């Protein structure tokens, strides 16, 4: 469609708040892609959740036309989600580009979190150039920030545009550098089709849609396409680009970024990183494909038991647009019917539960996140267990292996000590420490995934004042002294509160859960013992004393209606209680226990 030499494919890398979405808005305005009057802030942030949280999970891609020195260029902006949960998706998006714009705040300077994505971009051989944003602020110090960029990242800043995305200052400079510096895509439109899937989404009318970068060949309506990894074959219904709304085109050629719609039922049939080729004229798969696997698992239950089927419908609908979400039905004695769900990480888990609550109006209880352990039984059988309740009896267990990560931590040297302490606390095994530059070290640890998903990321951010960043990949399994920690209320195990933890951490966790439960379990007519136990061994105990008194109030004429209304309210509250043997627990009690500190 467009000539290769007049196409530029790029992404924007920015620290949170450094102005990625705003810059994208201004670029669309400057190229006339979106008229000023149609502009709403952060137009590409399609989910309300993203716009409200100010975090961009993923932007819609957009194709912009811009005439520079008499030639019309096609500029494709592809976004990268900015969180470690989505590292793989980021790498696929970057693989679809030739260049990246690094946005740096003129007063904040280089921020640690940006760096992981910069390194990812460098790994993908992208041309990166910096843009200094927010130069209109009184605290702006563009020269110092430039030096920082050169020192820390080693990028040439001599041609870095100084802009204010908010005020629309020097936006044309950015376009100029994109066109002059970012290499044009290479590719052969006459070669067999190779299209890289870098994302997908679900459309209510057209079904699941592939977001692709065409590397070689071309594709149009009627092409019989084959997904190389999944082996599935489809007839293309239509192809097109994002302007930013979907706009049908006659074809997509090598170098183009756009969508392929082919009556695909769910996004689960589309695997990010897979290569689309033409059935009968097949090309080699593109490198870098990985099957995305859930990392964290958690039980999700409706607060009101009768909402189970609503939750089921909601998950089915979310699954249509989020292939990385997996779930299977689960039953808990304490929480009733619900689902065991797998997520890419804690942020992903947060996003899914928040979307379930917000878009489907559900009240949910989520159990503590857990990773998947390999449990080897004495009879030679191996089980993958992510639900503590499914852990076999200790006598049947030969050993438990836990998933291990190879974690790369990037940080200014002054925080290295604290980071290493944290890693040790989290049962990490030190591998290596190297100076990348004078002001940047890379620390490599083998860390148990179960510790990383718990609260590692937040702790890392807080001890390094936000400067340290983390990327990781799973590097296998390792035998570990894992035990099942049970919580007993009134002598009965509350399955929803069970955890798989390392023996060394079991005492501390058991004690803190028991203490917290004591605060939130409402007093009942009988005393309730709270115990934490490993097998038959009680490791912590608290007691909720019996309720001994209500307020004895008078009850005359008008009090009767008041008292009845109060009774109705209390009865409503009781409906939301979860009964565990003889103990009633409000949903909030569950949630406050399960909340990660």
């Amino acid at each position, binding site marked *: 469609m467009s000539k290769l030499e007049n196409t530029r494919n790029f992404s924007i890398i920015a620290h949170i708040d450094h102005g990625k979405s705003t810059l994208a808005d201004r670029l669309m305005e400057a190229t006339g892609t979106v008229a000023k009057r149609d502009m709403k802030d952060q137009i590409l942030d399609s989910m309300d959740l993203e716009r409200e949280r100010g975090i961009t999970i993923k932007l819609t891609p957009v194709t912009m036309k811009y005439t520079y020195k008499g030639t019309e260029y096609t500029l494709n902006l592809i976004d990268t989600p900015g969180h470690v949960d989505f590292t793989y998706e980021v790498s696929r998006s970057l693989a679809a580009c030739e260049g990246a714009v690094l946005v740096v705040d003129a007063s904040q300077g280089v921020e640690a979190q940006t760096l992981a994505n910069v390194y990812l971009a460098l790994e993908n051989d992208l041309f990166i150039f910096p843009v200094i944003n927010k130069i209109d602020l009184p605290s702006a110090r563009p020269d110092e920030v430039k030096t920082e960029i050169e020192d820390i990242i080693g990028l040439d800043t001599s041609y870095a545009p100084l802009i204010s995305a908010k005020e629309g200052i020097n936006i044309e400079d950015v376009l100029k550098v994109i066109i002059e510096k970012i290499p044009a895509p290479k590719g052969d439109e006459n070669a067999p089709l190779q299209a890289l899937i870098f994302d997908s989404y679900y459309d209510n009318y057209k079904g699941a849609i592939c977001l692709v970068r065409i590397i070689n060949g071309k594709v149009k309506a009627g092409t019989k396409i084959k997904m190389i990894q999944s082996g599935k074959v489809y007839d293309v219904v239509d192809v097109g680009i994002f302007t930013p709304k979907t706009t049908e085109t006659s074809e997509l050629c090598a170098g183009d970024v756009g969508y392929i719609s082919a009556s695909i039922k769910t996004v689960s049939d589309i695997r990010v990183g897979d290569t689309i080729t033409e059935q009968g004229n097949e090309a080699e798969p593109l490198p870098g494909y990985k099957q995305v696997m859930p990392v964290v698992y958690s039980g999700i239950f409706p607060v009101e038991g009768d909402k189970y089927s609503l939750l089921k419908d909601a998950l089915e609908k979310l699954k249509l647009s989020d292939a990385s979400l997996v779930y299977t039905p689960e039953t808990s004695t304490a929480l009733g019917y619900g689902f065991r769900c797998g997520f890419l990480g804690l942020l992903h888990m947060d996003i899914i539960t928040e979307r379930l609550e917000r878009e489907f109006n559900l009240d949910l209880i989520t159990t503590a996140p857990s990773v998947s352990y390999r449990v080897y039984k004495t009879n030679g059988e191996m089980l993958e267990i992510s639900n503590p309740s499914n852990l076999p009896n200790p006598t049947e267990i030969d050993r438990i292996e836990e998933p291990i990560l190879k974690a790369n931590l990037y940080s200014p040297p002054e925080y290295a000590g604290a980071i290493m302490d944290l890693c040790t606390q989290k049962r990490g095994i030190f591998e290596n420490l190297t100076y990348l530059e004078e002001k940047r070290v890379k620390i490599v640890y083998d860390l148990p995934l179960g510790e990383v998903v718990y609260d590692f990321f937040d702790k890392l951010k807080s001890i390094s004042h936000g400067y340290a960043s983390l990327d990781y990949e799973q590097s296998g399994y390792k035998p570990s002294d894992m035990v099942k920690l049970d919580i007993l209320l009134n002598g009965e195990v509350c399955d929803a509160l069970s955890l798989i933890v390392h023996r060394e951490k079991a005492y501390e966790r058991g004690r803190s859960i028991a203490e917290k439960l004591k605060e939130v379990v409402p007093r009942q007519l009988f005393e309730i013992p709270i115990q934490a136990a490993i097998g038959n061994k009680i490791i912590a105990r608290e007691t909720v004393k019996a309720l001994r008194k209500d307020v*004895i*109030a008078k*009850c005359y*004429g008008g009090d*009767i209606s008041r008292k*009845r209304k109060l*009774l109705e309210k209390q009865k409503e509250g009781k409906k939301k209680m979860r009964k565990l043997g003889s103990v009633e627990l409000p949903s909030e009690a569950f949630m406050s226990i399960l909340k990660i500190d």
Partner: protein
Amino acid sequence: MKKELSLYVHIPYCNSKCEYCNFVSTVSTDSEKLKYVELLKREIVLRANEYNKLYTISTIYIGGGTPSCLPLGSIKDIFQTIYKYFTVKNSAEITMELNPNSVTEEKITEYINSGVNRFSIGLQCVDQHVLLSMGRTHTVDDFDNTISLIRSQGISNISADIMLGYPGQKLKAVQETIDHLVSLNIPHISSYMLSVESGTPLQLMVDKGVKYLPKENDTIKMYQTVLKTLTNAGYNRYEISNFAKPGFICKHNKVYWNRSDYLGLGVAAHSYVAGVRFANTEDIKAYFDCIIGKNKVPVAEANKISKEEMKEEFVMLSLRTADGLDTTAYQKEFGESFLAKNKDKLANFIKGGFLVIDSQGRVKATDSGFLVLNKLILELCS
């Protein structure tokens, strides 16, 4: 034969506002009060037109607010209207609430001449610090003088209200309060625990940590002290918060707990007649406007009590009384067995020492059951 009906008359005025009170009452001028009395009289006429054919009045209760803060002559005026338009039994129990510092001999004479034969007086506590802290403006002497005034005019049916668990109140103060009432031979005592109501100055102070509620154990001890002292002195706890010497049980109160019919007159007054609970508006201005403008009683809400709600009220109210819940009456009224329906729960509560069942099939709260009665009722109703 006509059915019996009780009347409640609400006087929404006080000389000052206590800091724990969330009742509908204000501090106001005499002319405002007189205007209210005029409208109240019009409501009495309107209501009498509706009810007088079917009902005779068996008890009357003038409450508030502080009814005794009305100007001289107003109470007489109200009663004359009641007597003119309703049929009041000769034996009717007629109670009026008093504040210890708002009465004079002249007023007491007016009330008694109007037919009042029972007085209910708010004492709350004999500890002057506690009284001040509550925002009450009377002294213990004021209370004693009021008792003398009433007795000198031949009325012995007197009740005193006391409060337990107020911030700063000690067990000793409760003991002294009870001892004082026993020594004065006050034949009826209402004793209830402080409940911190939303929107009151007290709530603000408790929330801000300026005032502390007594410890749970201390409040329990206060209730136990009251119970023990009064029982030893010959009083019966005929309801969870009411104690009386033989012959002094309040008939009007029993109307509420037996779910008999009562009609509330005046702003914010509640009624229960023929299975419907209804209430007048709480807004004095709306009350004025509706009666003046439309010649109608401003009813703010009315609910026909369903059978299920009726069962709950039966449980909720009867368990408050010493007589307890009459399972035979329950069976007769609702056509189902209370015992069978709540078998497991009752077994549990009896085992826990909260309830007993007597030989006549009455379910009664024990001493420790009364202390957690709200919880027991919630469990039995859900």
